[in-house]
């Protein structure tokens, strides 16, 4: 009998019951909650007279609507404020573990979960947010759900699921200098497409993935959803264990030893079979920049904006033409000639301490281009912010002309006050370049933190390897 994939192991350990047609009741260990996708679920739960099944599985915090202005005291937008106050009230009424505004531990839920040790290897973890795939970096089965499923997990601690297929994305070799986890995952999406992972759970493996820090692995798994896969994951190794050890929610003492023994098995068996295997060579991957309105519309920084005339598929060609119209770009323009209006370093993809260090290393001692309207750094959590300040990174950013902000989702999706104006081009370390994503009419280009930093200094894209 063939061995098991990591996905098989995680799945099998959480089956409460299964029907012959494959419909499975899957147990959920951890439920992360934020303000945007939860109010209707809490209300429906209350109207049905139900209680959360297991309170201590839930960790909640506001992140999407929260202001990032230094020292803010209130949310100016009354609609945003009501949504955050609704989460406050639900957390209080039910006695949830909650990091409200003002708590230094608060931040983007996908940064805070791992930081607190609320994300552990071997868990099933869900959140009403598609970027929940991030937590798969810890050899967890983690995926985003809609609000009805948020209510379902609250009420039953389970989800009704059918098992996805398994895909291995093997990134061999060694990434060159200046090539980061973000570039690897953008190259993966460029290769398999935004629907390439639909119906699959992805496992990222190979030497280039093993060489990544946990921050880097989170960046890669975060964007599994941009390849169409609800879940992405990486096997456990010493890097994982070193990160998880001694976090506030992590097991301690004897329990830690017991957990580590179990976690060591959280990798695909050597004879496991996958439904699909995709391989890439990290050594051939260059810093990536998106040119269009879907993350698959990506090229290396030394390439040009593609020409739709060369695309044989009519639906794809129409998509490219539409994207170029929206982005205000002409085919064959060198990527390095795209002038920028704003730069955003932040989001659940790239707002961890390592991301800020990488950006600061490029910026150190230099100035943001005068042509830029704004350059923002938004740390992923209050603790990332504290750590960065202890290392003096905030002073490097502010001396260069960056704004140093409070943690939150910020300009990744512009639900708070941070947003692009129509027609503005932005180098962004976030995850989606959809039309209007960062503000109506805004034009987003996805890049790594180092590439965003270099672009901020130059005022246009530059190859960080030679900058």
């Amino acid at each position, binding site marked *: 009998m063939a061995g098991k994939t990591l996905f098989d192991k995680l799945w099998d350990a959480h089956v409460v019951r299964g029907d012959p047609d494959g419909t499975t009741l899957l147990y959920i260990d951890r439920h992360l909650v934020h303000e945007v996708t939860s109010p209707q679920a809490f209300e429906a739960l209350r109207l049905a007279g139900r209680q959360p099944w297991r309170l201590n599985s839930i960790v909640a915090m506001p992140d999407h609507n929260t202001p990032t202005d230094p020292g803010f005291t209130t949310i100016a937008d009354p609609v945003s404020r009501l949504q955050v106050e609704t989460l406050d009230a639900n957390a209080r009424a039910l006695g949830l573990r909650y990091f409200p505004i003002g708590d230094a531990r608060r931040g983007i839920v996908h940064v805070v979960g791992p930081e607190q040790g609320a994300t552990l290897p071997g868990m099933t973890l869900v959140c009403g947010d598609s970027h929940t795939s991030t937590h798969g970096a810890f050899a967890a089965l983690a995926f985003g759900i809609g609000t009805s499923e948020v209510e379902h997990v609250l009420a*039953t601690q389970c989800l009704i699921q059918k098992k996805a297929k398994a895909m291995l994305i093997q990134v061999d070799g060694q990434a060159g200098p200046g090539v980061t986890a973000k570039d690897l995952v953008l190259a993966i999406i460029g290769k398999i497409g935004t629907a390439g992972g639909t119906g699959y759970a992805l496992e990222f493996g190979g030497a280039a993935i093993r060489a990544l820090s946990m921050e880097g692995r989170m960046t890669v798994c975060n964007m599994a959803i941009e390849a169409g896969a609800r879940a992405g994951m990486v096997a456990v190794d010493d890097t994982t264990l070193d990160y998880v050890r001694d976090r506030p929610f992590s097991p301690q003492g004897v329990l830690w030893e017991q957990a580590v023994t179990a976690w060591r098995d959280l990798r695909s068996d050597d004879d496991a079979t996958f439904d699909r295997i995709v391989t890439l060579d990290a050594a051939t991957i260059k810093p990536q920049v998106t040119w269009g309105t879907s993350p698959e519309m990506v090229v290396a920084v030394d390439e040009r904006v593609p020409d739709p005339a060369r695309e044989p598929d009519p639906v794809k060609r129409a998509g490219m033409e539409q994207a170029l119209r929206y982005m205000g770009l002409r085919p064959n323009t060198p990527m390095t000639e795209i002038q920028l209006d704003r730069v955003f370093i932040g989001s659940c993809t790239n707002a961890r301490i390592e991301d800020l260090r990488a950006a600061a290393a490029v910026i150190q001692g230099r100035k943001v281009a005068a042509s830029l309207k704004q350059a923002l750094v938004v740390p992923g959590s209050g603790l990332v912010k504290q750590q960065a300040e202890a290392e003096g990174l905030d002073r490097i950013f502010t001396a260069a002309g960056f704004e140093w902000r409070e943690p939150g989702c910020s300009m990744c999706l512009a639900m708070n006050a941070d947003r692009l104006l129509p027609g503005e081009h932005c180098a962004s370390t976030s995850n989606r370049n959809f039309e209007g994503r960062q503000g109506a009419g805004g034009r987003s280009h996805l890049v790594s933190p180092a590439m965003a930093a270099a672009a901020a200094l130059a005022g246009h894209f530059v190859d960080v390897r030679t900058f």
Partner: protein
Amino acid sequence: MKAFTRLDGLVAPLDRSNVDTDAIIPKQFLKSIQRTGFGRYLFDEWRYLDHGEPGMDCAERPRNLDFPLNHPRYWQVSILLARENFGCGSSREHAVWALDEYGFRCIIAPSFADIFFTNCFKSGLLPICLPIDVVDKLFRQVAAKPGYRLRVDLPAQTVTTPGGEAFGFEVDPFRKECLLNGWDDIGLTLCHADDIRAYEARRRQEAPWLFA
């Protein structure tokens, strides 16, 4: 949940691939704590020429007359014909609520993003995957014939054109049963509460750190 059995509905085309949930319902409308009120902001940035904000009276707003839903021939539609990877991106169920409230009961596309696909069933919306060549054909027929309708039969799992051509589609048997009966998933799951408790008791022994 609303039940779905059969539908004879007017079809509107949306001829672009990778339509994401940010396009279906832009982020500013997600600030609502209600489950209703999203239909009038469906595809807001494509439907209207001005910038939409929650609470705006859409009757007064300038419409983009190039957008299909603004054309009189597509008023009172209940079936959306779409392209590959419909509903990609954010998990926001508000996208489904907006489509539902606008009047859509069924979406036909060559493929859907997974989270959106799951969310559809929770509001009694039926997402149907048909092969690309069939979808191409339907796009041609919709364009050629004002008032074009399709008949969707969930029990028989068929989509039938006005010309009488029928196409079969796949649907998960459990989801089909829930849709036909309008069943609430949570109620069904709680029928297995004892199984959940038994699982927890066993798991607490194996992996006690998960219950701290």
